[in-house]
């Protein structure tokens, strides 16, 4: 048995297509920890939850072991040949590497601050490439049209110029000085305000948004979108929040984020093609799309093809 080595160097999807190393050997979210724990509570220690990652079906179990740290209590294996997969719990999510991890899961230092609460808003499966879901997360121009009354409203549609930065050390992308006029920026439905954002793309399938927290203007509320690439045309979006705001209940915050994401789902499932068309020249950006242009170029530079149209 056992062959972590079998799949280590390059990934093979079920249909034999090769998967980019950078994707195959990366950590990907596969489940909310709450969901795995609930499955164990309801179904006992043999309650297996299953999902699919990069075209491979995997099984997951929450196994509390005496003396083990909580993050070591999850087991993940491929359902086709029972090979174990690397698994780590972080940010309320179970992360899995199907290959051999080259680096650790992305870091969000803010999440460790003691006065924050971590909330998983729920996992939603969408029939589109996960790269499209990430790109949508980085976009502000759609706020008045898709998130009408929540994150934007006509006629306040203008996207002011913002600043792209590349962190060379970690090879991550940032968009600074983003701002947008929002009628109801968060659950605290007070007055409208101009919200300031910083966007960060940490991995091809993970992005984080830092938004101004009105009660503490020098710090940010953090919303992360961790996308599980089920295959090239399906994904599961895990939205995780690390919030300072303590005016709203967990339930209200989750409800707000779920509404926002469900508004995006309608758009995502209606994008043609489902895969991100990298290098085809069929889609045309404007200035407001600077971050998505940078994201697509960054994907190309890392030679990511999984979830794209492979140039066609």
């Amino acid at each position, binding site marked *: *048995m056992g062959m*972590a080595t079998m799949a280590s160097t390059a990934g093979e999807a079920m249909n034999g297509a090769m998967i980019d190393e950078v994707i195959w050997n990366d950590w990907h979210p596969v489940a909310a920890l709450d969901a795995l724990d609930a499955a164990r509570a309801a179904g006992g220690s043999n309650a297996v939850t*299953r*999902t*699919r990652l990069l075209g491979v*079906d995997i099984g997951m*179990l929450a196994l509390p072991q005496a003396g083990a740290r909580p993050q070591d209590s999850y*087991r993940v*294996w491929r*359902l086709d040949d*029972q090979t*174990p*997969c*690397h698994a780590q719990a972080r940010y309320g999510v179970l992360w899995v590497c199907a290959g051999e991890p080259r*680096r*650790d*899961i*992305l*870091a*969000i*230092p*803010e999440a460790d601050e003691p006065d924050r609460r971590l909330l998983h808003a729920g996992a939603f499966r969408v029939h589109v490439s996960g790269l499209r879901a990430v*790109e949508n997360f980085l976009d502000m*121009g*759609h706020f*008045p*049209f*898709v998130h009408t009354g929540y994150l934007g409203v*006509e006629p306040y*549609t*203008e996207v002011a110029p913002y600043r*792209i*930065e*590349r*962190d060379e*050390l*970690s090879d*991550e992308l*940032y968009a600074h000085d983003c701002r947008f006029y929002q009628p109801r920026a968060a659950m605290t439905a007070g007055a409208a305000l101009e919200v300031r954002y*910083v966007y*960060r793309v940490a991995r091809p399938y993970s992005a984080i948004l830092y938004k101004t927290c009105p009660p503490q203007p*020098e710090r940010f509320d953090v919303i992360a979108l961790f996308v599980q690439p089920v*295959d090239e*045309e*399906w994904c599961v979006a895990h939205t995780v929040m690390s919030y300072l705001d303590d005016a709203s209940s967990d339930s209200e915050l989750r409800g707000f984020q779920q509404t926002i994401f469900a508004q995006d789902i*309608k*758009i995502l499932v*209606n*994008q*043609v*093609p489902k895969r991100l068309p990298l290098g085809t020249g*069929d*889609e*045309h*950006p*404007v*200035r*407001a799309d*600077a971050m998505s*242009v940078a994201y697509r170029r960054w994907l190309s530079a890392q030679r990511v093809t999984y979830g794209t149209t492979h140039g066609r």
Partner: protein
Amino acid sequence: MAAEERIERAWFALCDVDQLGDRAIYHTELLGRELVVWRAGDGTFNVWENRCPHRGVRLSLGHHRGEALQCQYHGWQFSSGSGACRFVPAHPDAAAPAVAVKTWPVEVHYGFVWTCLVAVGEVPPFAPIEELEDDASLAASEDADARSQVRSVRLRTVAIEAPGEAVQHALAGYCFDHARFDPWQASGCVTFDVAPHAVMIEQLDDAGQRVVFVVQPARAGRTYLHGVALGPFAEAERLSVQRHHQQRLNVMRDALEQQFDQREALSGEGLADQLPLCVPQTLSPAQPVMLQRSVSKPVGAPGLSGEKRSPVNPDMTDRAFDLYLSRSRRTLKVAAGVTVLQTLRNHGIDVPSSCEQGVCGTCRTRVIEGTPLHRDDFLTPQERAAGDCMLVCVSRAATGTLTLDL
């Protein structure tokens, strides 16, 4: 292959014009291409690719604004006729980018909108269907009496999960009788081919009633069927004629579909049911891996490293400079406040462009000598530092002269 090309070059009916009132956007498909059909306020008919050229969202999700369609995603508006973008809400004061929705040729005949999926300039002439022509001319007649008596009744379009050829073949056995409803009547009608994708069915009795069906091959395994019942009919008979044919077409459709029993394949549709869900014998973790912890500074912390834009020297920003074109050996003067792209255009030199905002990279041009002053949001820091290319729609020169590979 040749047959497919012939098919591609034919005109196909897409929908009844009556479906386009009330600012409707009609969503359909022809030969595997999704389309939207709509009629502008000034009466112009449009057949467009159902895809916004910004980020690929279906325009059928959008809004009919009278003389333009608006995409649901970012509110981009595209003008009737040309499909050209006329407004981008994210930049309300800027000129719209030179981007357009893909449009297809349109003609209207017999109360239907038709299209042909070929490039402008290669469009074949519309081949009239004689049996429907008589009717059309009567509808346009000077004689009010002729016009008032409804000669033909357009039927409701029916969707059938079967290939176009199979549908056309099944129509050979189609029978009807407006005088009475009898779904099982199997004789008394004869079918003629009247066009490559149209058939006429005629009753053999004295009444000689006829119906013409026009086939729209939507995609492999799916067909839309349009029909025209040829009268004369009184206005009050219209609905019952439509219902009569609807019932018979439903029977034909159900028989065809049973025959083909198309299972819709959903790619990656969900969780595999076949794999056994057993827990492996030795449930051990994968080999432990010592990993370098990912390091990332908290956002908002002072001193976050990253590229800093070079401070813009106000004296240099918009000043004029010389542009030397190495291949055409020309020297142009780029005036203050005029972009390099515009200057080139003014001299008849066409550089491809799209957003004209320094974002898309389409106008990237090689720099041979001189130092560009980058003002774009596209090039990486390394590319900027290398100084061997620039985006001519927004960037300028840091030196007095700039040499481009044009």
